C-alpha cells in the first residue's frame, strides 16, 4: 500500500512539474494549477475526528451495555428462572410424580392378587358325568376343544331326532336351536380366552405405569385406550351372539305359534264338520 502511494505521488510529481514547465501562457498555467488543486482535493484523506467525539461514542456504547442490554439479560434470566421453578414446583414436581408412581405400586399390591383369586374361584356345579364334561368344556377358557364341546353338548341335551322320529320342520328347528346355543357357548369360550389376554394387557400396562415418567405416560394411556377399543369390540361380538340366541328363541316361539294357528284352524274345521254331520 505504501509503495503504491509513493509510486502514485512520484508519478503526479513528474507529470505536474513537466506540465508546469512546458506551459506557454498564463491560461495553461492556470489550467495546470486547477488540475493540481483538483487532484489534491480528491486524493487527500478526510480529516480525523476530534478526541471529544470519540470519548462520547465509547461512553454511549458503555451506556447501552450497562443499561438496555444488562436489563434485558436480567429480565430473560428472571423469566427462565421462573419457568424452571414453575416446571419443578407446579407442573412436574418430583415428589408428586413419585407419589403417583407409589400409588400405582400400592394399588397393584392391594388389588391385583385378591381380584385374581376371586376371578379364579371354581364355579363348576354339575354332579353327573355328562353335565360335568359339558360344564368343564364351557368354562375352561380353551379354544382348541370345540369338537369335544359339541360331543358333550349332544350327550347332555341329546342330538337332532332322526328323520323317522320327527318332522323335517321340527328337526330343522331343533338343529337351529342347538346350533345357536353351541355357537354362543363357543363364542363365550373365545371371549373367556380373550379376557385372559385383556387382563394380561392391563397388568403389563399397570406395571409400566408404576415406573413411568410424565413424558412416557401418554404412550401407556394411548395403548390402554387401544386395548379398551379391542375389549369393546369383543363385548360387541358377545352381544351379537346373545342377539342371535335371543332372536332364535323368539323365532322358535313364533314358529310354534304359526304351527298352533294352523292346527287350531284344522281342529276348528274338523269340529265344525262333525257338528254339521249331526
Amino acid at each position, binding site marked *: 500500500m505504501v509503495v503504491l502511494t509513493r509510486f502514485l505521488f512520484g508519478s503526479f510529481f513528474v507529470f505536474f512539474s513537466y506540465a508546469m514547465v512546458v506551459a506557454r501562457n498564463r491560461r495553461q498555467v492556470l489550467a495546470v494549477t486547477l488540475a493540481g488543486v483538483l487532484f489534491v482535493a480528491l486524493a487527500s484523506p478526510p480529516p480525523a475526528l476530534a478526541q471529544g467525539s470519540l470519548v462520547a461514542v*465509547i461512553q454511549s456504547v458503555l451506556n447501552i451495555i450497562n443499561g438496555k442490554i444488562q436489563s434485558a439479560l436480567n429480565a430473560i434470566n428472571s423469566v427462565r428462572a421462573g419457568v424452571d421453578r414453575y416446571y419443578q414446583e407446579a407442573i412436574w414436581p418430583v415428589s408428586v410424580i413419585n407419589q403417583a408412581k407409589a400409588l400405582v405400586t400400592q394399588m397393584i399390591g392391594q388389588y391385583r392378587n385378591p381380584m385374581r383369586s376371586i376371578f379364579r374361584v371354581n364355579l363348576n356345579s354339575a354332579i353327573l358325568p355328562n353335565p360335568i364334561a359339558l360344564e368343564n368344556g364351557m368354562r375352561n377358557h380353551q379354544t382348541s376343544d370345540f369338537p369335544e364341546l359339541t360331543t358333550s353338548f349332544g350327550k347332555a341335551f341329546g342330538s337332532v331326532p332322526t328323520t323317522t322320529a320327527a318332522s323335517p320342520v321340527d328337526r330343522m328347528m331343533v338343529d337351529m336351536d342347538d346350533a345357536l346355543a353351541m355357537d354362543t357357548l363357543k363364542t363365550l369360550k373365545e371371549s373367556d380366552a380373550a379376557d385372559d389376554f385383556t387382563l394380561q394387557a392391563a397388568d403389563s400396562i399397570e406395571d409400566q405405569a408404576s415406573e413411568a415418567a410424565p413424558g412416557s405416560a401418554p404412550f401407556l394411556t394411548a395403548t390402554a*385406550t387401544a*386395548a379398551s377399543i379391542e375389549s369393546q369390540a369383543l363385548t360387541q361380538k358377545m352381544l351379537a351372539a346373545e342377539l342371535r340366541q*335371543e332372536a332364535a328363541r323368539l323365532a322358535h316361539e313364533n314358529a310354534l305359534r304359526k304351527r298352533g294357528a294352523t292346527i287350531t284352524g284344522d281342529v276348528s274345521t274338523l269340529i265344525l264338520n262333525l257338528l254339521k254331520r249331526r
Partner: protein
Amino acid sequence: MKNVVLRGKKTLEWIRRYKVRTAVLLGIFVLAAPKPVKSQFLDPCCAIMGAGLNTIGNALGSVIGGGLNAILSIEQDISKFEQTIVWPQKLINQARALVSDMQGVFTQMEGVMRIPVNSATLPATQQFEQNLLSRDPNQIPQTSTQYVAVYGAIPDAAAASPETRNLVDVTDAAAQAAMKRAIEIDALADLELQAADEINQSIATAAPGSAPIIETQADVWLVRANAYTQSATADLMRVQAVDLANASADVKNGAANTTAIRQQIYNLLKRP
C-alpha cells in the same frame, strides 16, 4: 559535473523568472504529499480509543458474559430436569417397547375371536347359520329367505286370524332384525379391531408430543365403539320387549278364545 552545474543554474534562472509557477508547484506538492501515520503510542487519540475499547471489553465480559452464563446455567438445569424427570429417553423407549408387546397380545385376542363356531348339521340350518356368522353385511339381504326356510312363513289368511298373523309377523320381524343387527355388529367389531391395531402401531412409533394426538383418536374410537355397543344392547332389549309382548298377547288371545268357545257351546246347547 559541468552539466550538473549548468542545469542547476538554468533551474535557478527558471525559478527566478517564473515565481508564480514555482509557488503553485510547491503549494500543490506540500498538499498532495503523503502524511505519516499517527503512532499508537504517541498519539493521545489512540490511547483514549484503546482505553475505551478495554472498558467496553470489560463491560461485555461482566455484564453480557455474566448474564448469558446465568441464563445458560438455568437452561442447563431445565434441560437436565426435562431429560431426567419429564421425558427420560429410557422410559420412553420402555413404553414404546410395551406398546409393541401389546400388539402381540391384540393379535392373539383377534386370532382367538376368529376361530369358527359353526355347529349346525342340516343343510338349511347350516346355510342359515353361515349367513348369521358371516360378519358380512352384504349377506343381510339373504337372511330373511333363509329364516323362512328354517322357521316357516306367516300363515295365510285362511289358516290364521288377522290378529295371529299380525303377532307372527311382528315377532318374525323383530327376530330377523336382531339377527341382521348381529351380522352388522360383528362386521363393525372387526373394523374396530383393525382400527385399534392401526392406532397401537402408530403409538409404537410416536413421539411424546404426538402420542396425545393418537390417544385422542383412540378415545374417539372408544366413544364410537360404545355407541355401537349401545345399539346392539338396544336391539337385544327390543327382542326381549317383543318376547314380553308376545306372552301378554298369548294371554289376551287365550281370553278371547275362551269367550268365543263359551259362546259357541252356549249356542250349541240352545239348539233343540
